[in-house]
């Protein structure tokens, strides 16, 4: 798992969106969204900003660095 944690699933649930809906909205595939969600794929700055813009929140509300000691 990467050091980057994210709250994409939370935001999707709030907006009642499936992974496919979000993927179509920002121009990536569903698999790309699902692998970002579980931390297997670290997205580029462009994808991160597109996701943040889609949910109309600052990028740091969705993505954050995990604490170094895992807390």
């Amino acid at each position, binding site marked *: 798992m990467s050091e980057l944690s994210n709250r994409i699933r939370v935001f*999707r*649930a709030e907006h*009642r*969106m*499936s*992974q*496919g*809906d979000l*993927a*179509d909205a920002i*121009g*990536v*595939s569903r*698999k*790309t969204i*699902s*692998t*970002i*969600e*579980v931390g*297997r*794929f670290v*997205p*580029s700055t*462009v*994808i991160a900003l597109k996701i943040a813009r889609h949910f109309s929140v600052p990028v740091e509300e969705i993505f954050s660095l995990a604490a170094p000691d895992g807390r």
Partner: protein
Amino acid sequence: MAETPAPTTAQIVDTFMQRTALGLVLIASKFVLTATSHFLPAASEDMVDITAVLLSIAAVFVILPSFSRYVAARQKDKSCFANVESYLAEMFKEAGMRAFSATFVLLIGLQIFTDLAEPGLPIVFYLDLIVAVMTGSAAVSYFLLVQDDEEEEDLPEDEAP
């Protein structure tokens, strides 16, 4: 009857990656077969040749449709593909790097082996073996890298729109 929505750029790229990896498996199988044919009796030569041709044709049929869709979409809008990012494309690049390492190690191994043993095998055998390892290791690496990716959860059904 409802029309199937046109695939997005990202879906076209992902399908192309999946089909290319599948095609690599077929190409690797073909070269494994031709490499091992040097150790088989001459009577099996025709069978090996026919199977090799069938595997090559199968590889073309597996890759060509997604490749032509990829090229057609790219011709339509080049900028679209310049910005597309895909997990599968990244894994394909990673698999390519692993395949390069595997091929490099094989070349060193073959160099040492031929210097020590002088097996007297034809050069075609080594070429077949190298291409088989190169394409096979790329395909195997790719499928190993993406193998667990079918389990990710989407929204529960009652939450989905």
